[in-house]
């Protein structure tokens, strides 16, 4: 609480874009100037000391990631900015891209300097036309003024930044699926090893960072490590951009101090509370893939560690709020349709298993399930994957499993009710209206 925003400081209201001149008037590209006067390794060291963890969901320390780039391979190094933001419930990166795109570009340039890259790709999801337009416009300005291109800030170094538009696949937000997509191939995640830092784009060392992570890198170099660490705690340094959606009065994004802001405060203070005066039922705190938290568990700060200790993950900070009227079977059907639809189909467990999970939960949703189907759903989820299983190349299958397992763990009674009462409330209402032809929303 009481935090003055950093990433969104001086950001125009939603719908507006900060121009290069406006950005420069607020100290824009000062971080880049500072970075270019430093040795690349010192920039990496600074980001490492700042302790910023990946904001795309995994929370891996960005500085450590940068340090994995092998030296003197004779190959070019690439930076790929993950701006796919494909996780349901997440819409925080678009705030940076649409409103303060130069902050992202500066972050890309700082990172490129640190890792020795001359080319950065910003992979923006195709469903974000405003973000694409804003970043492209900002890049035009930056190129025209020499911030991006052959001679960055007149210091002789080259750094090109390109926007690559996604085509609508969730799995292309997985970092190696994203690389496959940039290369023009199917958006298939890749087996590791080789790790992207060693063999990424076109077989060359590649660092993949989330939009907010890179924006933070610019802030770290501009303001210094100590200033950066004045928000957050040792586990989660710096601020976090959080998107709050679902059954709240004022859905939207907010930049918070994760160490001093609890999930309850996110909902009640920043999002105007649960809508229509209703009670809270559950929160999915980190985007649709993470385990659901029952209302009683949400009095925890929004740090990676605290949310994990409370049984979920802060993930990509997409807080989905579900009120007391929600049937969790309805919610899970929606999620399983999504994961089944988005599985790339490469690995057996995900290709076959996400469809099975959807079929099972749909059967319960339609009131055609039995109590045994509830146990079967739980058991099939274990068969498909789950955290710390390693059955698949990427986490998509686990992302379907984690909600399934946690929904059943915390809200089994909703599933039992759907079995006993002939379907979920939404299904029964639809059937009553004669519109329950299928599971499609």
């Amino acid at each position, binding site marked *: 609480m009481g935090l003055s925003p950093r990433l969104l400081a001086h950001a125009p209201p939603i719908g507006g874009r900060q121009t290069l001149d406006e950005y420069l008037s607020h100290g824009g590209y000062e971080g880049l100037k500072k970075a270019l006067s430093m040795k690349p390794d010192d920039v990496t060291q600074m980001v490492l000391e700042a302790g910023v963890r990946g904001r795309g969901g995994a929370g891996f320390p960005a500085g450590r990631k940068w340090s994995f780039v092998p030296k003197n391979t004779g190959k070019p190094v690439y930076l790929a900015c993950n701006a796919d933001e494909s996780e349901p419930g997440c819409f925080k990166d678009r705030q940076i891209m649409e409103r303060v795109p130069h902050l992202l570009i500066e972050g890309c340039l700082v990172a490129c300097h640190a890792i020795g890259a001359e080319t950065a790709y910003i992979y923006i999801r195709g469903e974000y036309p405003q973000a694409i337009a804003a970043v492209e416009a900002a890049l035009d300005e930056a190129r025209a003024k020499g911030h991006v291109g052959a001679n960055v800030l007149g210091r002789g170094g080259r750094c090109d930044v390109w926007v690559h538009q996604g085509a609508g*696949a969730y799995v292309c937000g997985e970092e190696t699926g994203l690389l496959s997509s940039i290369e023009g191939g*199917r958006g298939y995640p890749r*087996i590791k*090893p080789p790790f992207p830092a060693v063999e990424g784009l076109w077989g060359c060392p590649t660092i993949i960072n989330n939009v907010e992570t890179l924006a933070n890198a610019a802030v770290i170099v501009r303001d210094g490590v100590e200033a950066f660490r004045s928000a957050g705690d040792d586990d989660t340094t710096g601020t976090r951009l959080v998107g709050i959606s679902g059954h709240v009065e004022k859905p939207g994004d907010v930049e918070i101090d994760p160490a001093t802001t609890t999930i309850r405060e996110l909902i009640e203070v920043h999002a105007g509370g649960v809508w229509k005066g209703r009670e809270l039922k559950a929160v999915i705190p980190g985007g649709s893939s993470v385990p659901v938290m029952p209302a009683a568990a949400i009095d925890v700060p929004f740090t990676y560690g605290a949310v994990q200790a409370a049984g979920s993950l802060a993930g990509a900070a997409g807080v989905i709020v579900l009120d007391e009227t929600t049937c969790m079977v309805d919610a899970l059907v929606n999620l399983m349709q999504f994961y*089944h*639809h*988005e*599985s*790339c*189909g*490469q*690995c*057996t*467990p*995900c*290709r*076959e*298993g*996400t*469809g*099975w999970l959807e*079929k099972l939960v749909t*059967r319960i949703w339609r009131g055609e399930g039995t109590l045994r189907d509830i146990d*079967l759903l739980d*058991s*099939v989820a*274990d*068969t*498909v994957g789950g955290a*710390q*299983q*390693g*059955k*698949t*190349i990427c986490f998509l299958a686990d992302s379907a499993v984690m909600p399934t397992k946690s929904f059943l763990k915390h809200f089994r009674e909703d599933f039992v009710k759907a079995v006993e009462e002939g379907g979920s409330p939404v299904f029964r209402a639809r059937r009553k209206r004669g519109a329950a032809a299928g599971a499609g929303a």
Partner: protein
Amino acid sequence: MSMVKLTIDGCEVEVQPGSTVIQAVRAMGADVPHYCWHPGLSVSGNCRICLVEVEGMPTVQISCNLGVRDGMVVHTQSAKARAARKDVMELLLINHPLDCPICDQAGECKLQEYSFEFGSDGSRFAFPKVHKQKHVRFSEKVTFDAERCILCTRCVRFLDEVAGADELDIVNRGDRNEIAVARGGELESPYQMNVIDVCPVGALTSTDFRFKSRVWFLKQTRSVCPGCSRGCNVTVGARWNRLLRLVPAENAAVNRWWMCDDGRFTYKAVAAGERLGAPLVRRGGALEETTWDEALAAAVDGLRKCGVDLVGVISARLTNEEIHLAASVLDEVGARARGHVSRTCAQDDLLRTGDGNPNAAGAALMGVPAGVPSLDGAKGAFLCGDDLDGDAAALAALDGLEFVLYAGTHETATMRRAHVVLPGVTSFEKDGSFTNVDGRVQRVQSVVAAPGDALPDWK
């Protein structure tokens, strides 16, 4: 470089650095179940059946992409590894059709094998299966069944990486994924039929062999392809004394795991045309059936009369043993010249050599060079395994000779000009050896019985 030492299922193993765990397991003579991994292709890591447990690693690991490290302790048979593989197996089968009774792959199907080994006795999946395209024509040689496909991408990788023909890819997404021919065309690679062999299930089948026989009824014989001088090792499948298919047999030094499509169809020539089943001698202008004794007597008589004026054409399609004996006959008679008919075939950098004689090297080593010697001034000719049908001038020259001995397998224009005809057998009907283009002597084995009284030329 020093070897890497690791422990697999309690056994200490030493392997080359850079090896993967699955290679180490195989080096000790064991194996890990696998579908997508193939020793001759890149690692794709998608089938997830080769999961193993490694001490110190929190998750199970795919052994096909896990590099060995000194001191690594691997468990391929631990409860955790087996349970993970069982889970993958169950998922592989939920949408797989239960059409084993009519599937060509039955009997050599990895799904069947691993199901038998560690699958369940029932399915917990009680929904309609996902339906996809069936009997899709990929080309005149390859037929595809998308429902049987487990999307392991071996076929995609084979064509791309080995055949150099990027002709297959995956379309759609998730459990709607299907293999498809790129750009909507048909497979064109002359090596395309290898995708049938690398397919671990019944998704890619040979249009030629489809529904001909259950594979467990095939008499399977290891031999050598007679299509060119590469000498690709093959397994010949036969039933009812009929040749039904040739598939490559692994030989790291010759053909690795592959063979060309042309080679697979060499068996067709055996039953094509009119086979010679009995010795013939010319009596009053016409060839008449006779006994081996009479025919051989007539042959010896004819050859002796020619003496030094005999010309020998000894085929480089014959085995070393036959060439040696035929050459001995020429030596005995004192024949003045000998050679074999040259044959060309397609040539490329993978396997096909361009030399259509499987034993050209063997023939040359035994003094039977390429090329038919001139028949000018000769009295007689001994044509052993070769005919001169492709050479009109030579064929005409035969008409002017006093004696022509023909030993061959089929009725030909050359044969109709002979005075004595000895019925021979094809390389699928006899034992012997071929010497390949690299000088490697390889064993040819009899697969089926020859028609009638035909005998190998060495008999």
